[in-house]
């Protein structure tokens, strides 16, 4: 994958060159959202390619959100909430985790590249962790390149 990109580098394919990863993050209000706030108040600089969608709890996250995000051209999806046991709502994040495990196979079966879905925990006190996580994810998605397979899949199934 990386070598593929290397080859295209020299070519004047404008869109390829300008491609910037698009990542949608579903985060819970109490932990990760506040963690990202902390990264801000601490002025920790990180990559600008992530768009956060705030939800009350990771328990609210539906697998269809993830599919929808890819459908809308996301190259990567992040899901982040409270640490297990610290859930603001007792157990919401456990449910999210369990459900996520169940959908993993389904997503994979549908042709999603699971390397593009990143599940993690960031607490309200972990501003640095949020910044590191974003950088790591952006790096990873950059390496994987644009998520064209999904569009291809869509095109195929439309046939």
């Amino acid at each position, binding site marked *: 994958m990386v070598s593929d990109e290397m080859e295209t580098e020299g070519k004047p394919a404008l869109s390829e060159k300008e491609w910037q990863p698009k990542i949608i993050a579903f985060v819970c209000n109490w932990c990760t959202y506040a963690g990202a706030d902390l990264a*801000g108040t601490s002025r920790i600089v990180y990559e600008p390619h992530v768009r956060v969608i705030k939800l009350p709890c990771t328990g609210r996250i539906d697998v269809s959100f993830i599919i929808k995000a890819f459908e809308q051209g996301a190259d990567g999806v992040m899901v982040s909430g409270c640490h297990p046991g610290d859930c603001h*709502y007792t157990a919401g994040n456990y*449910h999210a985790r369990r459900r996520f495990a169940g959908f993993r196979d389904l997503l994979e079966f549908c042709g999603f590249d699971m390397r593009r879905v990143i599940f993690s925990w960031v607490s309200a006190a972990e501003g640095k962790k949020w910044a590191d996580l974003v950088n790591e994810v952006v790096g990873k998605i950059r390496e994987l390149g644009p998520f064209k397979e999904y569009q291809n899949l869509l095109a195929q199934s439309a046939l």
Partner: protein
Amino acid sequence: MSRIGVFICHCGENIARTVDCARLAEESGKLPGVMVSVDYKYMCSDPGQNMIKRAIAEHKLDGVVVAACSPHMHEPTFRAAVVQSGMNPYLCEMANIREHCSWVHTDRELATEKAIDLVRVMVEKVKRNQELFPIRVPITKRALVIGGGIAGIQAALDIAAGGHEVILVERQPSVGGNMARLSETFPTLDCSQCILTPRMVEVARDPRITLYTYAEVEEVEGFVGNFKVKIRQKAKSVNADICNGCGDCWNKCPMKKIPSEFDAGLGYRTAIYVPFPQAVPNTPVIDREHCLKFLKDKCGVCAKVCTRGAIDYEMQDEIIEAEVGAIVVATGYDLYGIGKEQPNERWKGYGEYNYDTYKDVINGIQFERLLSASGPTQGEVRRPSDGKVPKSVAFIACVGSRDPEKGIEYCSKICCMYVAKHAMLYKHKVHDGQPYIFYMDIRAGGKNYEEFVRRAVEEDGVLYIRGRVSKIYKDGDQLVVVGADTLSDSQVQIRADLVVLATAMVPHKNAYEFAQKIGIACGSEGFYSEAHPKLRPVETMTAGIYLAGACQAPKDIPDAVAQASAAASKVQLLFSSDELEREPIVAKVNEVTCVHCRNCIRVCPYSAIDDKEIRDRHGNLIRMVAEVNEGMCMGCGTCVAACPSKSVQLAGFNDEQVFAEILALGHE
């Protein structure tokens, strides 16, 4: 259709430095449905807020997006502002372009792009926002306290002192709990009954407290501020209103050899009995499992001797229904069994300590009874087998505790202290006796606790031996304790006349079932779970239910009392207003599409969803659906994600809103 206003804040230079606010305002203005889009230096300032208010009136806005700092910072500010222009606060949203954007990015162009995206997301969301109204629920200002140990007593007294009614339910015939069984208490060695009895009496006397003893809570329904409870008053067979506690009945009862629960089997009681002389209430109950009248329809002596005619063999259990606004659970603890029978199948007991076989191997509470002036030996330390005064006593710490193989993993926290106390008190009573303590670690982390332990060692000559005991066997009329002292790498065997096992503090046998009954969570061992281990230690996850005392974790008396007072103050706090106002971020079921798969009911962490019957006009059941109780729903949204038919939606975060947000990011 939509008439949205976008207000972009520079936050001085904080945002404007990295985000091109003018461009942002321009781009935002182009978004469909946006009527007005302006930028300003300080949106949260008075002129800024006025700008918003004016725009709402001028442009007849039906939605506002403020692109500024984090909603955690100023959402309340802006929502309050729009309310002043007559807009519903939930039609105002914030796009976080400071904490999540300007402060963390350096590339002005990319940051501006991101800011535009963030505004677009919020514009799309706010278009789909609905007016929401805070939920108000009235509060019944009466509390239920379950368990009449020191924790329950303290909580009841405190709540009553705050001017509220309290119902106190105690399972035993008397309040007092385990503290009533103790002799003297560490670290001050004050007499347990002397400090407890006045409070027990007070509980019975306080007109605001209704006391039900020999009673149990059967059912709890409802939610914070509005619980409905059912209490089973077991038949006492004695009319407490008539009885004056003269004692003629129990003095004459022929069934005299029933092992006394209060004395932990070391003493006896009659079939009609009060558990101990200072009992509150001081009226007896008949234990029907042992009474001849009930077993064989014979005797009837008590009824004959009772000059007041208080005995009523026909009495039936009674169900008392009550409405309460808050519940304090203070059901206390039990001890790990030293017999072969264990309340929990994972607990194996100690065959090597010869449970059940040797009478002179007893537990800590039994030793308390031997030390207690009101105990079966009037406070003389005499061993159970032959009544001899033991000349050497071995105390064994951590029995069942810290032992994942045979018992439980945790440390029971109080035994280190009471073991030291026992050894000390024994020495005070038997001057020529020798106490030995086998221990693993000494955990004495409380005010004056370490000093207390050192006193036992240095002044009272208690010999501490560091090692877990391997076995106890009988040799002649003595017990041989086979132990080790790891400090000297030696095996140590001592001959003791009496062995006292400091058995673990464990939850009640049916703690789990009880937790389920009242709708609170408990850990794997059965101690009830607090809402947050540090910051909400007296609340449960269920709003309106609080914890006090050893039912939450092993605790000594000062901790139990502190927690009880804290729980009481939480109750007062709840009762300080007449109505409960809650954010309207709650789930709601669409009854038309709900297929009653009950997924939502299963996943809701707050048990806020229940079954609902849908009936026709004639009262015939048509079908079942799920129903969210607004008073209990905390708005986590777990049910929404779990519903296969998309029939339950969370106000403020419904599928339409979230999908619109995702779609808003879907442009190229």
